[in-house]
């Protein structure tokens, strides 16, 4: 008999239960599969009611984040062979987010935080519709490129205990994306973004646990971005206090 592995999938059906339960499914231990393939096998072959999000299956869309054995993972990027087939894999929705159904979380708090930090290029000298070209050198690109790789998968939020304890905290990805635009030589919106971030639940909510950086599937290093942001904010403050001409 072909080898199999057991998935213990968290089920939450709001119309029938008040809290999630685990349901067990036996799936083939296919060496070419990632966790998401195993879940799709469950959905297609065993139980069509299991609900989860996914789209690209190639680590680009950021929609397939879930907890696997308590670790936040991009399930389309984690091979089944990372797990021992004699032990079940526990699949749960991303932690610290409210659950809508089964493995689907409510991401509206994240979307709101994201839009609050204005992650777009801000300039008042050109119309958004105007076709203008701003050139950048490789060094200028390099300054923010790493932070621009974020796919909004929210895996970092699920690894951050501050998000669990203080849900208002802006959180790793949104701050990293704010920093991505601050560091962009074409952008002029740093001060505007600072208004949203220089608050306790903004930048300074971060206590530098550093797990966001470790779990990020795209090597964005949100923890680094936040600390750089803090350094920048603190130096600007000191300059404005100590130098007569301030930060200008």
């Amino acid at each position, binding site marked *: 008999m072909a080898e199999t592995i057991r998935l213990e999938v968290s089920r939450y059906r709001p119309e029938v239960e008040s809290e999630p339960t685990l349901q067990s499914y036996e799936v083939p231990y296919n060496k070419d599969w990632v966790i998401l393939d195993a879940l799709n096998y469950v959905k297609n072959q065993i139980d069509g009611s299991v609900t989860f999000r996914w789209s690209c299956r190639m680590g680009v869309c950021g929609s397939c984040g879930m907890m696997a054995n308590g670790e936040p993972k991009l399930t389309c990027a984690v091979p089944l062979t990372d797990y021992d087939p004699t032990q079940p894999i526990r699949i749960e929705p991303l932690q610290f987010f409210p*659950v809508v159904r089964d493995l689907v979380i*409510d991401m509206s708090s994240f*979307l*709101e935080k994201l839009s609050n930090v204005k992650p777009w290029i801000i300039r008042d000298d050109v119309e958004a519709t105007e076709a203008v070209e701003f050139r950048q050198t490789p060094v200028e690109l390099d300054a923010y490129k790493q932070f621009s790789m974020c796919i909004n998968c929210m895996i970092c939020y699920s*690894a951050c205990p501050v998000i669990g304890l203080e849900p208002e905290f802006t959180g790793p990805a949104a701050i990293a994306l704010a920093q991505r635009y601050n560091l962009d030589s074409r952008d002029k919106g740093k001060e505007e973004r600072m208004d949203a971030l220089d608050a306790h639940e903004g930048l300074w909510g971060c206590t530098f*646990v550093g*797990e966001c950086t470790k779990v990020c599937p795209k090597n964005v290093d949100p923890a680094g971005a936040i600390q750089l942001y803090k350094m920048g904010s603190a130096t600007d403050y000191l300059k404005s206090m100590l130098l007569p001409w301030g930060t200008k």
Partner: protein
Amino acid sequence: MSNPSLAPTRELKLYRRPISFWWWLDRPAYFKFVVRELTCLFVGAFAILTLLQVRAVGEGPEAYAAFAAMLASPAGIGFSVLAFLAAVYHTVTWFPAVQTTIVLRVGEQRVPGSVITGAHMAGWLVVSVVVAYIVLRG
């Protein structure tokens, strides 16, 4: 929900998972983080002790002798050992983290994080040797 465009179209019955009091035991990294934060208490207490020591010096030889005797008591030595271990733990776990907070460039190249952490460690070693020399010179 302050942004209506993001609101779900019908009321959802969301399940909110409670956060356990023991969250800091969930992952080794959380535990290490909480321990690192707690080491600050020892580092802070040691700083206060040093200030009291300076005050004792100012109060004359008897006051200082009494203070020194207190430090040499088993409790005093025990505290010093704990504070030392706490400071070492804090430093050893902090310097590797520092590399993400500093972006240094030489020409067009970014200085690698390991160099930044290594420089901090080396600086720490030099300062420790100098302090040890001053203290142990006798």
